[in-house]
Every structure is written in C-alpha cells, then in structure tokens.
C-alpha cells in the first residue's frame, strides 16, 4: 500500500551569512557580509543585515532573514514611540534591554535570529557591543562574531583582540583589548571576513558595516587629510549625515559621527 503523502509547513529557514562587531575605547565597528543564501542557492549578493537604529546605535541581524527584517522593523517602531514619549534617543544599554524583552516575548515561537548591537555608551562615551541569543539572553562584550562562520571568526578574535595565549614580555603590563587603535580593528575585521570567505560557502560578495566615533574622540579620523593608513586597502568610506540615516533625526544625539564602510570580498 502506498503511504499517504503528508504535508507540513516549516515556518523557519536559515539564510547564511555572518556578522561581527568590535568595541574600542572611543569607537565601535559592526559589519556583516551581504550574501543571502538558502541551501546552495544565492538569493542575493547584496542584501543588508546591518541597520542604524539611532545616531549612536547599530543593529546587525543574522539567521532567518524574514524574522530578522521584521524584528528590526519592530525595534525601530518601539524606538520611534520612545522618542515621541521622551523627546530623546534611547541609550544603547536601554536598547539592549528592550531587545531582550522583545525576543523573550516570543519565547515559545522565537525570532530565529542572532542579534549583535554596537554603538557608543551614553554615560561614558565608550564603544559597546551587546550580543544576544534568539530568546533574549544578552551580554556586553568587547567583540562578538555570529552566524554561519561564527566558529571560524571567534577563535581568531580571541587571539587578535583578546590576546588569548599571548604572554607579555617580562616587566611589561598585561595586554588590554580596549587599547586597539581603529586602524588595527578595521584590519582585523577585513582579515576575518577574507578568511571566512575563503573557507565558508555562505560568506562572500561584500563586506558592509558602520564605524561609530565617540563625541570626545580626537585621534585618527576616517576621512580628510592626514588619515591615510586608517582604512584597509580596498575599503571605501562615506560619512553619514544624521538627516540621511533612517533614524529619529529630529532628536539625533549630538557629536557621534557615523561612517558607512564597504569592501568587495574575494571573487574566486
């Protein structure tokens, strides 16, 4: 007897890609690749998954793209309501707590997404990275990789950002991950994604992300005279006008500068 054909709707899918964020003393960097795939098929070579939320907070979303896009939309809506109620931008630490409650609200039918939130802390102007699991467990960290190539990226960051298994020379102070200059962080970012592109089929096409500079920041800028060597080779940069960012510009925070950075990833 032939078996009856059974149909079942699966509400989830995985769309590949990876995201990465690194916090500095007075800046934060967050980026992801722009490839969107399903199985062995490429659906798009340029689909954003890193989104500005405010003038000093950027959200990267990885996992199931449909859930990710909808989640970002609803976070932005909650932030808009916040500005209407309080006439100011929500600080990044509050955005992090908001994201936790929004994810946990769907505890029994989760958004299948890994979120990484990066930006500048309101009180002390330090670079901040917050990472989340799909149901809202979160933590502030110096750096975090998530997505398909997470297992390729994170141990490299442990070595290069956190100086794991490095011993300072006798008499030297311990290594401090918060002292990395922006130029070093951008090089590590690019090298990480170049490596992941080599070895992971779901990572490739373009690297796109944002650099946020703290208001009190004085040292190496990203554009203008005398800043050659800050940007890795092949990377382009555009300073973002707060008016053009899709954020609550009427009450945009003062002083933080946001830069869009892009780089094409290896083609073979």
């Amino acid at each position, binding site marked *: 007897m032939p078996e009856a054909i059974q149909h079942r709707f699966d509400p989830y899918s995985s769309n590949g890609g990876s995201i990465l964020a690194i916090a500095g003393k007075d800046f934060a960097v967050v980026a992801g690749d722009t490839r969107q795939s399903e199985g062995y098929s490429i659906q798009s070579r340029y689909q954003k998954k890193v989104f500005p939320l405010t003038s000093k907070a950027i959200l990267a979303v990885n996992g199931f793209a449909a859930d990710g896009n909808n989640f970002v939309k609803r976070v932005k809506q909650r932030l808009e309501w916040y500005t209407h109620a309080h006439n100011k931008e929500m600080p990044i630490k509050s955005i992090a707590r908001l994201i936790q409650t929004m994810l946990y609200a769907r505890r029994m039918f989760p958004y299948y997404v890994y979120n990484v939130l990066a930006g500048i802390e309101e009180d002390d102007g330090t670079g901040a990275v917050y990472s989340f699991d799909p149901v809202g467990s979160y933590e502030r960290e110096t750096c975090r990789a998530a997505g398909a190539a997470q*297992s*390729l*990226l994170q*141990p*490299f960051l*442990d070595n290069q950002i956190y100086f*794991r*298994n490095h011993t300072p020379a006798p008499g030297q102070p311990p290594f401090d991950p918060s002292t990395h200059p922006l130029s070093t962080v951008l090089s590590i970012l690019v090298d990480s994604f170049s*490596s992941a592109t080599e070895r992971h089929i779901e990572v490739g096409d373009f690297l796109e992300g944002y650099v946020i500079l703290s208001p009190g920041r004085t040292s190496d800028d990203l554009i203008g005279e005398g800043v050659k060597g800050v940007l890795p080779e092949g990377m382009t940069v555009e300073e973002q006008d707060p008016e053009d960012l899709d954020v609550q510009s009427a009450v945009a925070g003062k002083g933080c500068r946001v830069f869009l950075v892009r780089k094409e990833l290896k083609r073979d």
Partner: protein
Amino acid sequence: MGSPMEMNGGSVIAMTGKDCVAIASDLRLGQQAVGLSADFEKVFPINNQLYVGLPGFATDTYTLREHLRFRVNMYRMKEEREITPKTFAHLLSSTLYEKRFGPYFIEPVIAGIPAPSAIDPDPKPFICNMDTIGCITTPKDFVVAGTATDKLYGVAEGLWEPDLEPEDLFETISQTLLAAVDRDCISGWGAVVHVITKDKIITRHLKGRMD
C-alpha cells in the same frame, strides 16, 4: 551514543614553512563530555622525517597506528629504505579504502620532508590529509582534522603565511591550535608540536588552558 567521530574528541593540524613542516595535536582523551586523559598524543612518528596524526575514534587511533607500524616495518625490511611521505600517504589511503563500507573513524593528517634521492634531489616539504575512507588532499599551506576543524580553518586562514622559518612556523601553528581548541569543548587539555626540518625535529609540549 553519539557519532564515533565526536566520542573521544581531539584535533590535529599541519602546516608548511620554508624547508620545514610542522604538525601538532591536542592531548585530550574523553568519553563524550567527561575528560579521561591529558596525555593522549594523536601524532606519531613513522620515521625521522615523517609524522602522522590520527584524530577521531580513539580505539581506531590505536588500531591504525599499530597496523601502520606493521606495514611500514615490512616495507623497510623488503625495500631496505625508508618510506617516503607520498608513498606512505597512498599506503594509508588504500588501508582506509579497504574498509570502504565499515570505515575506521579517523581523519588522518600527514607531514614530512622526503629524503633527497636520485630522482628528486631537492624534495619539497609534504603535507596532506584525507577523509575516513582515504580521499587524499594535498594543499600547499595547511591541513586540519578533528573536532575543532572549523575553528582551525578560521584561525589558520588568518595567521598562516608562506615561507615561514621553523621558529616562526612553530609560533604560528601553536597559536592556531591553542586558539581553536580553546573554543572546542572536546579538544584541548594540553598540546604537542613537532617541527620537522631537513636535519632535525623540534618537539615541544605547550602550556594551555586545562579546562
């Protein structure tokens, strides 16, 4: 019971340098999450220019090591010379494919420098790895195997560069292995590195996290 490949844990990596090769393994032997031993080396000498790493199912590590010792000793007696890395790779590949439908759960890694011969007076450093049924790959940079494979690929791709001198190659392979096994629950518990040059072998035990 899980897959045999993840029962005992453990990882191996090999890299090429300038007239040298390096091969390294962690030292953990476990029963799934429970650690049993911190001196289980997975890399074995075949002769004084050739090493083989056998990560995977620990009982097969032993079985294969003993089988290979037997085959290489017989080869040495009959041929009255040492086996070359390339020949050894094909011997191991055939051994694995013989068990095509009931394989050894081992992903071997081979590293060595062939002795100069009449046909090949200036031989190049040799590395290769293969899957559980003997499919050989021979890249020019590095090979990895074991439970931390993904992590090893990520770090090695970032740290490795061509033509490293033996001491620089030692640092590169050591940092790669330690960074990778520290993100793998069932690899670690110490590490051992062998750097093979034309005229000597440097073997060092690394101090790593013991958790």
